[in-house]
């Protein structure tokens, strides 16, 4: 029963995704890979799409995976699953526990969870970086030079803009710039090989 699995898995994601947009990436990745809903490459391509479309990543991911696995009903069921935990929890907080953020046990829980989330985010980022650069399986590394060039240019542009022009580039802009760099560098590489 695909609808039930979609609902339950995305309910779990909604319940355990602390730490904002990037905090939920490790957990969603785990889930979609476990069920073969997406390949790792498809997953990160879609994160790129999420960054350039409106809405929270978790909701976008739920709608996308739901739609691929179960059509329009699947997308609605998965989205409902990912939204419901926060909906219920916030309702409880707003109506019952008015001073939850002052609660000692809750505070203790959050101080323990925070470093876990940061560890998850940074390790996910490093692993993705290594894989994009050409790390394939255990102890095998064939460096992809066009990716290295794109990455250097991208980081260069970001810090140039931040330090010299004193203007932070937004995530959407960064995605657009990187898409342009990807087309330019890969086309040039193809041209050079020919």
């Amino acid at each position, binding site marked *: 029963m695909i609808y039930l699995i979609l609902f339950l898995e995305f309910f779990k994601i909604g319940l355990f995704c602390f730490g904002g947009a990037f905090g939920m990436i490790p957990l969603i990745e785990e889930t979609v890979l476990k069920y073969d809903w997406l390949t790792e490459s498809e997953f990160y*391509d879609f994160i790129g799409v999420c960054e350039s479309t409106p809405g929270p990543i978790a909701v976008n991911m739920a709608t996308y995976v739901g739609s691929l696995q179960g059509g329009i009903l699947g997308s609605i069921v998965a989205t409902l699953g990912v939204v419901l935990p926060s909906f219920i*929890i*916030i309702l409880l907080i707003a109506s019952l526990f008015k001073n939850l953020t002052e609660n000692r046990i809750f505070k203790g829980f959050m101080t323990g969870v925070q470093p876990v989330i940061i560890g*998850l985010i940074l390790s996910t980022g490093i692993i993705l970086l290594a894989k994009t650069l050409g790390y394939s399986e255990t102890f095998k590394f064939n460096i992809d030079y066009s990716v290295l060039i794109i990455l250097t240019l991208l980081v260069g542009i970001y810090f140039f803009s931040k330090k010299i022009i004193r203007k932070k580039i937004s995530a959407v802009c960064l995605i657009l710039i990187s898409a342009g760099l990807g087309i330019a560098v890969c086309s040039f590489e193809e041209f050079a090989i020919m």
Partner: protein
Amino acid sequence: MKNTGNFFLIFSKKGETMLLSLFLTFLKIGLFTFGGGYAMIAQIKETVVQNKKWMTDQELLEVIAIAESTPGPIAINLATYVGYKKRGILGSALATIGVVIPSLIIIFIISLFLDEFMTNKYVAYAFTGIKCAVAFLILKAGAEMFKQMKKNAVSILIFSAVFIAMILFDVFSVSFSSVIFILIGGVIGIILCGISKTESKNNKEDKN
């Protein structure tokens, strides 16, 4: 009779905040929040605090604190909270549905075409670049959170343990649910919080 009365409240111009207005406001927020998270807070502040005057700056800060320390996307948390405060459960449901619907429709349409779209050579090239940007954005978000993290022996230890374990698990292709890390971290936090409380009690008694 009572039900029809409630129904007309949706369109009533007097009375409290209109349900329709809650729905439309959050629909707009859902449609124009790119990148999520903090980019969105600025927009919610402009709409909910400055234009609609549904809450004060102080209240918004409190809600953001709650949204950050509860699971789920901040946009959803905020919509549910504001909706509930203004018009009860019905209000919270409408505000939440409003904030979700734009992405639901946009992503559903994208999902129908993305596969075909990806077979194009230049689209694949573009995504090679986008993957670099995604890795960069993830690392940047993580680094910023790390800078803001309260650093003491315990938090550094938990952070390092999770960081190293996740990388080793990936290198040796071990599958492990990060939910377990989250729960272990939370329990350690609660235990330490209890210990520090009894310690401070003991210290007080010693002094006495």
